[in-house]
């Protein structure tokens, strides 16, 4: 029993210490904004690597999620004779929830794990130490551009996901299942609210991008500089980003929509 308590205490202390290190790391990264404003080329390169190269998975996933939403939504709504509301249902689900959340999970899996592996390997091969000895701050030069690229990319990727998802839902609902095209779009336009739905979705995706990028970069920076250490760090990135995304989604949803 005592041993269990000791282990629990030990693990708790380790987690808290890591959170502290991660917070100092984040503050250091945020000071890198000045370097990025002076040298925007660093950010642009990372926007391509982190954002553009995630396009394909976001687009395909958004398409299939939208198509499934259209299919499942039609069968549910047809029980109540409300098939014409399919467009509203698909758009609201995507913009409020599925767009930000699924995009964040995909971002963590594709871009986040790549960032962790990249930074971890740079640490293992002494590239970060080499930069320090060349009087270049590796956090500002290497990590900050990647962080801000993730922060900027996430809401754009979430918007892309939602947009493609709506088109997927339209393809299935209107094209395959016979929902009226005019009703699909007009009800969506009438019911979807910019501040309640779209803006809240954007806020969620910015928060998820912030947290996913932070976790990915910190796990790489803090990784044990061995192949096993980098492998574990990559796994932790995906798992912790997923937990953080889903947990924050609940909190944000409760705050944003709790009074409805």
């Amino acid at each position, binding site marked *: 029993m005592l041993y269990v308590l000791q282990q629990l205490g030990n693990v708790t202390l380790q987690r808290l210490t890591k959170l502290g290190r991660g917070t100092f790391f984040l503050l250091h990264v945020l000071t890198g904004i000045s370097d990025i404003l002076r040298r925007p080329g660093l950010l642009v390169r990372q926007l391509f690597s982190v954002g553009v190269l995630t396009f394909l998975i976001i687009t395909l996933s958004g398409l299939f999620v939208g198509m499934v939403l259209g299919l499942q939504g039609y069968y549910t709504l047809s029980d109540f004779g409300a098939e014409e509301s399919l467009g509203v249902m698909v758009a609201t689900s995507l913009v409020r929830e599925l767009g930000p959340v699924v995009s964040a999970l995909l971002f963590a899996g594709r871009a986040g794990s790549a960032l962790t592996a990249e930074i971890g390997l*740079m640490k293992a*091969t*002494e*590239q970060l*130490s*080499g*930069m*320090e*000895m*060349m*009087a*270049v*701050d590796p956090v500002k*030069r290497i990590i900050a551009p990647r962080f801000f690229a993730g922060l900027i990319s996430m809401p754009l990727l979430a918007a892309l996901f939602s947009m493609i998802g709506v088109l997927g839902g339209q393809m299935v609902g209107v094209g395959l299942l016979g929902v009226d095209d005019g009703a699909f779009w007009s009800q969506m336009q009438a019911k979807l609210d910019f501040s309640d739905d779209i803006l809240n979705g954007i806020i969620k995706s910015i928060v998820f991008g912030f947290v996913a990028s932070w976790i990915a970069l910190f796990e790489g920076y803090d990784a044990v500089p061995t192949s096993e250490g980098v492998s574990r760090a990559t796994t932790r990135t995906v798992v912790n980003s997923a937990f953080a995304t889903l947990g924050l989604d609940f909190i944000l949803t409760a705050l944003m929509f709790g009074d409805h």
Partner: protein
Amino acid sequence: MQFARGKITAIMGPSGTGKTTLLKLIGGQLRPDQGEVVVDGENVHRLRLGDLYNLRKRMGMLFQSGALLTDMSVYDNVAFPLREHTRLTESLIRTLVLMKLQSVGLRGARNLMPNELSGGMARRVALARAIALDPMMTMYDEPFTGQDPISLGVLVKLIKMLNKTLHLTSIVVSHDVQETAAIADYIYLISDGKVVGQGTPEQISRSQSGWVRQFMHGDADGPVHFHYTDDDYLEDLFQADNQ
């Protein structure tokens, strides 16, 4: 320990004795528990971050692995410190980079990527990068480890030549006795974090100290024991039997 300006000082000792740690202390990457490190009149660990970075611009370091930036070509690796710390035009940077690569014999390899280089070539590129800003001091962390005889000879020659031509102060950490003794002006032998011998290569070779003789002659046993544990061997065997 004192490192004379313009000389090559070697730090030698068994593996795991703190040689690389010493270089990291000098470069300010690690903080000492006690004592101080003074470089060119400045206490390294009392400097503010900006001043420490300014000091590091006057230092070059050659890491054991080379530590080349793997997403950049040889040319861009050598140009990196110039682009980061100077406002020179690209054409001037090009001239400087080619001069540095020429001095290490790799001007023709400028467009290769680090993964296309042999180990010896990677070290030479790292050396060119370490002297890109014409530092006052260069630190070499195990520059000869894992090198074939030809690459080794090239590196030895380069370290000696660059030290003389550029009036550098060089600190070489190594456990390659012959090669290091051939170029060093002064040697420190350390073991278990302590200096166990020091002097010119001739003084070291004539030393009667047990530590020094064991290391310089490569004896398997001596003050640095062969066996890791001090437990009695027979007792250990019988304990295992009783279990």
